[in-house]
């Protein structure tokens, strides 16, 4: 089995998939990441992160929703798997725990 560690960019992509819910496909993800983080990921980088996440089992994908401006090509939608949700939680827990241990930082 491949390692389940997440890189920083991967983590961001995973979170965005979660945020977008049923609307998470390539372009939407790109737009959303631009909006929220100010980054402009290339679709190549985005696609390879998505493929890796899928390989690690954190997200799953299915094809749906052909439109005119896509010349009839369907979109590949991504969705968090149970394992993905767990991973997000785990990351969150671990981060909070560790941040709390840093003296002189107060988080409400």
């Amino acid at each position, binding site marked *: 089995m491949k390692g389940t560690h997440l890189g920083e960019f991967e983590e961001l992509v995973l979170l965005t998939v979660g945020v977008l819910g049923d609307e998470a496909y*390539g372009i939407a993800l790109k737009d959303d990441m631009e909006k929220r983080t100010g980054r402009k990921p*290339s679709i190549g980088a985005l*696609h390879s992160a998505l493929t890796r996440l899928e390989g690690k089992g954190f997200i799953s994908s299915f094809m749906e929703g052909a439109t005119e401006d*896509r010349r009839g090509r369907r979109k590949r939608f991504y969705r968090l798997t149970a394992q993905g949700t767990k991973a997000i939680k785990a990351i969150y827990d671990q981060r909070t725990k560790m941040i709390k241990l840093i003296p002189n930082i107060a988080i409400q």
Partner: protein
Amino acid sequence: MKRPEPPGFAIRFFTSFCHRRHLEGLEGDLYELFERRVNSKGPLLAKIFYLYDMITLMRSSVAKPIKPNRMTNQLGMFKNYFKTTLRMGWKQKSFSFINLLGLTIGLTSVIFIALFVFDELGYDKHISNADKKFRIYNIRQGNDGQTSFLPIVPPMYANTLRDDFPQVKQVGRILFDYGGTVFTIDNQPFSEKKGVFAEPEVLDILNIEVLKGSFTHDTDPISVLLSESLFRKFFGDDPFEEQTLMISTYTVKVAGIFRDLPDQSHLDVEFIYPFKLTNQYVSAERMQSWIWQQFFTYVELEPLLDQKAFIDQFGDRVRDLSKEQTAKFGFQYDPYLQTVQDIRLHSNNFQWDIAVTRSFQSILFLSIAAGIILLIACLNFVNLSTAQALKRAKEVSVRKFIGANRMQLMIQHGFESTVYTLTAGLISVILLVLLMTPFNDFTGKLFTLQDILTAQNCLVYFSSLVVLGVVSGWYPALILTSFNPLTVLHGGGAKKIMRKGSLVDPRQLMVGAQYALSIGLISISLIMQNQYNYLRETDMGFNKENLIMIPLTNSLEKDLDATREAFLGHSQVEDVSFCYGVPGGIVAGDGVFLPEKQENEFSCNMFMVDYDYLSTMKIDMIAGRGFSKDYATDPASAFVINETAVEVFGFSNPQEALGETVHWSMWSQQDSLKKGKIIGVVNDFNFKSLHNQISPVVLHMGESYFQNMIVRIGKDDPLTSIKFLEDQYRKYEATRPFEPEFVDKNFEQFYESENKLSQLFTLFTILAILTATIGLFGLVSYSIVSRSKEISIRKVLGAGTERLIRLLVMRYIWLVLICIVIAFPISYWLANTWLENFAYRISIGPGIFVPVAFAIIALTLLTVGFQAIKGSRANPAERLRSE
């Protein structure tokens, strides 16, 4: 309006690149982004961004796997082939050894010959526009019936070309500095031989680059241009400005320095005098001559000029202008052009050439020899691999059953032979590295490994090895893969497996071809050697052994009688003579006039001699007498001619020539005739190389023209005699270098290229024979092993050893006999074309072919017989028990 579309090539490329799984989604995404950008940024930027996005998608996670599952499998197969090759090679040690040995010998020979040949073909490639630059040569027809090729032409050629032919861009003359020059720098003498007088155009035509100083028509005539290395030899690292050197008693300025000529240059020149310096030696009148053929003349023509038409036109003009003078002297000539790059290899039949040349034929012969050796090695390889086929029949059959198709099996065997050729190729490269120095010593070339082992050469070399491997693996593969696997695995015999269809066994044919080629090579190399020995040992009409030539100097010729006495003062010095004209050296061409015979002059070679010349040279008289002190008139009015002259001048026999009147116009005073009578006739003696016929010779006494001293020393202890000569010489010349030349050595230099060719050819012949013999050895040993059962049964049934040996040997003897019959006529013809280069040559008779035939038969008997005896002596019980 047409809807904007992303670039079509990009779409197609992406489709071919992208994995099927990702294609639809990504394509959609790309389109969607494109549409959006067309609206916001316009179609052009949208296209550019489309390309950018696509490029970011070029990653392994997106790409199709390259031909799923095929690559790895194929590699595994080749690994397996390699393993099989090694195992088979190891199992059949003697076969692999013979194969590798043969191929290595062949390849190494080819490498060396190729180096040599390409080097020769690469001469004068540094000259720009070489196809428009020519040297003029003359074909001279004398009324003695002789045709000669002369690269030296009259001085008027250049003048005529300059004045009357606007098609000529530039023209330049060279006069060779015959005899060389002794330069004195700080009282230290240097004797240098490689010098010329040249017009500045020559430097431009031949791309001789003046690095420092200048060399033009205005250059001070009393000066000299030195090559870089000669300058360094004379002056070390001193600056060149204001350098002077001494020649005899004159102070001469160094006009400049030119870049050393490359090794691959037909001209080997180290110092150049301005052409105007010849004014000091040659009268202005003589420079107008149409007779005096002495100048190497180079021309550069305008581009786009039809050179054929040009030379015809020039030839007509020359015949017009020269006729009056040449006809009087009994000859005529026609000018021809050769490009500067042709000089090296296509000047073989020229006389008095200063260019360093080699015969094209020798290059051709060597290339053919290289081809033959390689062919023999390959045939060997093919032959042995085919012979092994039976042993491998089972392996092939199993492979077939498992599912290998014929193509794959062919690839396997092609691969196998490529492994062999590549291995042999590597060994050859190692040999090349090891043998570089002896090869350079032998050929006198300066190859370095850095020059040879370039990436390009290695690439060409190894890719040709692969081709060679595939080609020579093709036939064995064809045989091997044609077996019916069922028959093989059933345990069918050799007869059943090898479908015998054709009348001639191709393997026999191949052995035959090898033998025919080797026999041809042996015969030709023997003929070459015989010819070379003939050239060295034939009777020259004078005795060339122990004859030493010393150039005369001012102090030596001051009092010739005293000088003679001084040099004769040793028991081992037999004779001393002074002369102009020494066999093997420079001989004057001139003409004489016989008032009672013909109104024109007869052209002849002229020797100026003294009383002792004929006795010193040991030239025999056949009629009349030689020059003698008893006749006071001899110095002024006696001529001696040779046998050829008797014939050419139109006398029926030597006696008839005696007492005839001869006129000769002297060189020193214009229009003054030396009138005299023929007092004697000498035997024909060879004074040129034996490539040429003997021409008419006139000898007479002429002290003022002497250039050389000839000393005949005794056979015993030549070193002491030479030491004595040097001591005597030192009494006259304290600092000038003592440079004796041996007349027989000079003659050997004429045959230098024949000698080298014959040696090289012999070497490669031996290698070819060796290769063919080990091939035969391998083949016979195999065929006897495969016939061991037959031999055993014959033995059990009562055949004697002798009968068995005869059975095994006779086949090959027949084969060799057929080869001999084929090879001899061809080599006879080839050798004859080579021998036509020589005016004096051996005749090819049975004396050469019979020994070759016997040697080959003996070699075959030895090779086959040894194996046959071994095979027929084996205990039949042991062989047959294994069934």
